[in-house]
């Protein structure tokens, strides 16, 4: 009889653990995982030129060219400042925006928030 009770308690415990781990069964929703996108700056272009992201995601710009670049919102609400060769700059996405390199204005890109 005692052995049967112990087994029941053990199974009940296991069921409770599973219930707590099940998404939506707790008062605190699981935090949404933030994404990371890498934009390579190469051959005087942003690659890819258009990225899709969610608010809070990070976009890492890496300069592979031999000249300085920058990443500047269009219109100019923010800028990375000069980004030397082989360095990177991280942007936390707050909304959809177009951007360009103010040093080389023919270089353009877009961030689209889904």
């Amino acid at each position, binding site marked *: 009889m005692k052995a049967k009770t112990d087994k029941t308690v053990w199974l009940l415990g296991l069921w409770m653990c599973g219930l707590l781990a099940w998404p939506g069964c707790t008062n605190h929703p699981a935090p949404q995982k933030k994404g990371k996108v890498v934009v390579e700056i190469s051959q005087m272009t942003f690659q890819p030129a258009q990225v899709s992201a969610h608010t809070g995601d990070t976009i890492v710009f890496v300069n592979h060219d031999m000249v300085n670049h920058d990443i500047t919102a269009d219109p100019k609400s923010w800028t990375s400042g000069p980004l030397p060769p082989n360095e990177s700059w991280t942007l936390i996405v707050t909304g959809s925006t177009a951007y360009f390199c103010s040093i*080389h204005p023919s270089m353009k890109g877009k961030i689209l928030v889904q």
Partner: protein
Amino acid sequence: MTILKKMQVLAAGTLSCVALMTTTLSAQEKHQLTDPEIASVAVVANQIDMDYAGIAKTKSKDADILKFAATMAADHKSVIDQAVALVTQLGVTPKDNAVSQKLLSDAQKTKKTLQAKSGKAFNKAYIDNEVAYHQAVIGAVEGLLIPEAQNSELKGLLQKVLPILKAHLSHAEMVQKEFE
């Protein structure tokens, strides 16, 4: 000399520069450039545009001209630094040749013409020359220097420089529209 005549002289000088470069390139099709000669042409061509930028810095007060000139000075210095680092690594000494000499003699004439101008006439002359010069240099890099480079790293460097020159040309054309 009227402004119009001075502009005609500058335009003729620029066209002459492009034509002579093309002629020199045709001549070079028969006489292959060596890698040390290609290195010399690359350094000279970049240095010339840095010199033009230096003139603009002292003569212009236009914000867009000054910003463009600052970009030319910084970018072409970066290219020269990379070229010098590469030839040092390869143990190659840039060798003077007909193409680099022609570039230098033409640049001397253009510098004199630019120095003789001021105000809006200078701004227009400078940016018109930048458009023409970059068109000519892009043609030379694509049509002569890249095809003739023997060392793969030197060829690779020239291939990396080409998009920079094309971005400069687009930028120059954007600024040029302000002075039409």
